[in-house]
């Protein structure tokens, strides 16, 4: 540990920008970015499953509102959605007097809401596409076993649809990680916010932004790696046999 510490100090010595202080900024940014992306993806998936089932419903009053929701949220920039939630949240009557204001006062929660709504819209479409592409034979077999619609959805359609949605969902995760950079616009100190701070403080755009780009690259590759492994495991039955 002592040795590591010495090595670290030596590495940073003679370096005006990447001091322990700015590195702690980047670390804080990394934590914020990961929290924001992970939470919004998690809530987004939970919302997307019932929405995707509803999107494929035969009833118009269920199908159309969900389609309108995904159309609007996929057709407009995330930045606009973020601005709308961030500046619009105070317009809910009485929110500033309620206990929720402690939470909504910080930019983190409006950003979380905007990101969640955005990713839920994309994920709904991904799942809907996967559900629609379920092989007819699987559904016929389930019916022949006398399964009810609910049971068939739970045991047959959803498990196979999730597997088929996996590659597209992996892209969505990476897309969300990259899109989360706009959180820095509404005063959140995420990775990009930290980089901007370092840039503005030292007027060193190359160091500040290339360093943060490398962190994002590492995150992207980690996500890609995890999804490759998952696909290999879960889609093993679809691979051509030698």
């Amino acid at each position, binding site marked *: 540990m002592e040795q590591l510490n010495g090595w670290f100090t030596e590495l940073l010595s003679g370096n005006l920008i990447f001091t322990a202080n700015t590195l702690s900024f980047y670390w804080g940014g990394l934590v914020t970015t990961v929290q924001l992306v992970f939470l919004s993806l998690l809530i987004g998936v939970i919302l997307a499953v019932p929405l995707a089932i509803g999107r494929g419903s035969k009833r118009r009053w269920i199908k159309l509102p969900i389609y309108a929701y995904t159309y609007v949220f996929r*057709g407009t*920039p995330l930045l606009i959605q973020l601005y709308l939630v961030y500046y*619009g949240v105070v317009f809910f009557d009485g929110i500033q007097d309620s206990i929720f204001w402690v939470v909504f006062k910080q930019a983190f929660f409006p950003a979380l809401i905007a990101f969640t709504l955005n990713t839920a819209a994309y994920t709904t479409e991904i799942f809907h596409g996967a559900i629609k592409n379920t092989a007819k034979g699987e559904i016929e077999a389930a019916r022949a076993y006398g399964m009810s619609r609910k049971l068939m959805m739970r045991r047959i359609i959803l498990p196979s649809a999730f597997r088929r949605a996996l590659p597209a969902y992996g892209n969505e995760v990476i897309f969300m990680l990259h899109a989360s950079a706009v959180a820095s616009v509404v005063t959140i100190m995420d990775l990009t916010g930290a*980089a*901007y701070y370092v840039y503005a403080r030292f007027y060193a755009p190359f160091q500040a*932004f290339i360093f943060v780009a490398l962190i994002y*690259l590492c995150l992207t590759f980690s996500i890609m790696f995890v999804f490759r492994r998952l696909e290999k495991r879960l889609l093993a039955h679809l691979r051509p046999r030698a």
Partner: protein
Amino acid sequence: MIDLQGYGPRLLEGALVTVELAVLSLILAVILGLLTASAKLSRNRLIHGIGTLYTTLVRGVPDLVLMMLLFYGGQIGINMLTDQLYYAFDIDIFINVDAFVAGVITIGLIFGAYMGETFRGAFQSVEEGQMEAARAYGMSPLLAFRRVRFPLMMRHALPGIGNNWMVLLKTTALVSIIGLTDMVRVAAEATKATHEPFLFMIPVALIYLLIATLSEWGFAKLTKRYNTGFGESSEWNN
């Protein structure tokens, strides 16, 4: 015209900036994408490596970070370059990075990588027999590319180009962060001044939806055109 507390005309100007930016970046991205695709399909290891490095790096880093790097770093980089020119050759020039040009170059560079992947896949799905037939007719390589490979490739590339265009259109909103006056920036400034976010943000969102809907319709028409002779269009499912 809708006044929107006096911000209406400026918002329209901003919308024009958004459209110009998107279209010019798309053109740059398509050119870069074609170059990248040829680089990645090249047998030369070095060229192939450069193409792969470009697409991997650009697709692994957020658009906003790249934009900030190129925009804030670009001016300093160019200044350093012109300084070197001055010291070495006594050439005294000053280049001021224009925000609009920087925006076009940045978005073009980012989406060039995505287009490159799209075009690579599309070029690979053109049957070699078609090109052999073209050669057998005595077409020059350029003519064969223009008349045979390109139209056949476009059939496979169009769905990807359509998706890229939709993402590109939404990415243009980011230029408002680095100081270009597009419609998002006008709306953000108006919101800060008047504290009426819905009044300005919702019209901007509607304009984006309108452009997206119009281009979807346009792409459907193009797809139909390039699918001539291949039966019903089956690839364009949105």
